[in-house]
């Protein structure tokens, strides 16, 4: 595992040596600014909310559709090239002939992807200390901790899924489409399935709700940290990384 820092540095350089990372960051900054504008608009209204569930702060990230759509585009864009590009350009052969293990290659790519994912969330975090200290708006910071923990494990899972699809194919677009489809399934279709199951009175409603990422992040944003969600995120992440390592090993073995 001693080669991981070097490999991570190589991956991060690959991100930042091109314009793509900066463009995505600027796009996220614009979305964060729009969401913050909307948040301030909600906060200045007369407080008539009847419960913490409808606290305006929940609309900043966890209930913001623009945030989720941006994330569904950004994560596939960041992960699609991780292994697919190496395969397409043939650099994977060079990489696998140097004395590094497949595990080191996969884990370092995943760490770089997760680091990039955190960078995408930074624009959203930037506004909140200003609101608290400069705006003197003393909101409950507890839910922010649970949201941070939840978004971290969620990002780890999504990047692992993206990496797996990137290992499956040489074509970056195919990898991005599969990652996007999986995220769409987990974020929106599971939520739609839950609503459908509730409307039909189906016993699957609980299962669909549990699977819905939209619901999971909503509860994190409220200040509830369900350890089962974290366990599922980390399990899928570990499983996907394991499968990716196996794929690379099989490929190396020919």
């Amino acid at each position, binding site marked *: 595992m001693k080669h991981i820092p070097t490999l991570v540095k190589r991956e991060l350089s690959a991100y*930042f*040596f091109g*314009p793509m990372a*900066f463009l995505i*960051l*600027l796009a996220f*900054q614009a979305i964060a*600014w729009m969401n*913050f504008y909307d948040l*301030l608009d909600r*906060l*200045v*209204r*007369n*407080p*008539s*909310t*009847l*419960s*913490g*569930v*409808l*606290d305006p702060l929940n609309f900043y990230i966890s209930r913001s559709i623009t945030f989720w759509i941006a994330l569904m585009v950004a994560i596939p864009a960041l992960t699609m090239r991780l292994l697919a590009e190496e395969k397409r350009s043939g650099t994977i052969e060079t990489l696998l002939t140097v004395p590094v293990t497949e595990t080191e290659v996969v884990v370092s790519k995943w760490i770089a992807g997760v680091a990039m994912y955190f960078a995408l969330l*930074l*624009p959203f975090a*930037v*506004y909140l200390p*200003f*609101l608290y200290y*400069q*705006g003197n*708006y*003393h*909101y*409950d*910071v*507890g*839910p922010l*901790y*649970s949201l941070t923990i939840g978004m971290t494990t969620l990002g780890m899972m999504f990047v692992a899924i993206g990496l797996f699809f990137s290992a499956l194919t040489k074509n970056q677009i195919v990898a991005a489409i599969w990652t996007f489809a999986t995220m769409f399934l987990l974020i929106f279709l599971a939520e739609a399935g839950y609503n459908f199951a*509730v*409307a*039909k*009175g189906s016993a699957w*409603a609980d299962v669909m709700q549990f699977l819905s990422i939209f619901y999971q992040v909503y509860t994190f944003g*409220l*200040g*509830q*940290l*369900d*350890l*089962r969600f*974290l*366990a*599922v995120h980390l*399990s899928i992440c*570990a*499983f996907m990384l*394991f499968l990716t390592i*196996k794929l690379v090993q099989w490929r190396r073995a020919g």
Partner: protein
Amino acid sequence: MTQFFEWMGQPEVIVLGLGTALFLALFWVVRGSPIGQATAPEPGDAPPTGYRDRLVAVAVLGFVVILAGAFVATRYGILWSIVPFVAGFGMVLRVQQVSRKYRHVSQTLRRTIEFSNTALTCTLVGGILIVGNIFAFRYGGKALDFTHDEAFTLSTLSVNAAKALERPLVFTLILGRDQGTARQRDRVRQLVDLYKAQNPEKITIKELIAFNPSQSAELDSLVKRIPDLAVSRGDVVVLEYGEDNAIERGVVPVFDLFRQQTDAGRRESEPQSSTAFSGEDKITSAIVRFREGKRTQIGFVSGHGEPPLDLLEPREMGLGLLKSRLASLGTDAVALNLLTEDVPASVALVVVVGPRTKLQDQEVARLKSFLERGGPMLVVMNGEVKTGLEDLLALHNVAFEPGLIFDAKSNVGYRADQVVTPPLSTNDHPIGQTLIGQRFFVPRSSPIKIVGSTTPKPNEPRPRVNPAIVNYPLIRTSPESWAETNLDRPSFEKGIDPVGPFLVGVTASDRSEVEAGGKLKPRMVVISSPLVALNPTLQTDPMNLDLLLNSIQWLRGKQETLGVAPKVHTAIRFTADPNLRAKLHLVPTVISVVLILGFGIITYLARRA
């Protein structure tokens, strides 16, 4: 035939079938050809075909047995799964060991070794993930609560009530009947989820949408079972406890669960709004009532102009709201005519609310006899009218002082006689413990004096104090209040009108009767506002209802069922001038954009160089 299909539908049979299919498929893959078909020839140094096939079969069987072990672990427990796990891993490891020496001569056995390696790694990773998830699901079912006001944490009373359920409890949320409560649904859903997390085996949650045609039959059937549902307004939570024919039911309207904190003492200009959510109290009360089973009676003294028990309209001067809330707690409120009968033995508590005329001696004697038998009493009246109960109060070291309390600052509707108490700061008494931070609306109240609590003036006779009684001051008015002695001209006259804070609620316990746990026996609670329990007052300040119910439960000796403090959510309004708002928008945005662009330009220049 039916029996055969039932047998086939058993999980064990299904798993056996799947296991056999998996074995055959994997055997085919690893061996290189299906059963009954010859495999490709191998060099002469390779072991014979039969031997190779047996090794492949053992490796594949070992893997299938490991998977079967996982099924046994989930269905019968970890202990039972040890045997298949040991057998499965043993078989795979042994085959790997035996096959290794032939790996250069036999392609089949090389494939078998690869399969064994992959199978072992997969089961190891899968095992770790499954064990991690089992732990998370078994011990992490209750979400950690990160909110400052512990919005998602149930009180010990609720947790115990949910865990102690002996029969199934079904929560049915009937939603969509009222758009006004639409915003509150998520909060109610989350509350019942918290109960379910405490006892998932006994608690089930259902949702019925009122306007959903596919659920109308189920809704109609529920209305038939629970007639109260037909007359209840808005969204409701229905609780059904028990099975078969022994089901107890309760209905909790959602609009009863939320209340805007009283406007008294708070002005519109204040940039925050607090909402109390008392859902936990209402639902836990209902669960406790289900578990208690038997209904008790509370007698309300009548015949002296007391407000009627049956008036339910919020604007009518009746006690209907209190009565219906008592009913939801499993207590029946009955009117007592003490002129015609003694206090019945079935009555656990007597309540006197605002008599307007004097009670006759016979009635007072019957009340005294009830008190002497150990019966507790809740007295809700002021000193304006001589009711004949003064001696009974004096026996409990309680007396009313002259005048009515006025407060120019803490009041409702800018009317000084509509006094609101300051928020209860600290209170060691069980009645007040769940009401800390709450204000109470005590219109037309009199100051209460605890007899013997002050040193008499030089010319005053020494008061007669009942040494067996221990009094505890419950609620007081603010220091700005005064006791108006001249009601024709109600304004504060310095030197004439006594100045607050005044005691307006007091308890009396009997030290001669000590209950289990060293607690003194509750005897009496006196609240000196005759209007405190009326429908319009409870409508103005619903916290009064909690005060009354806590008092009643304490007097009944049901201290463990004293209400759960409502969860108060404070929504803060952001107040900022346009300049500050612009700064909040622009400063972080400009800093971030400059950093991103700066970093990008530096990278570009560095690469170019």
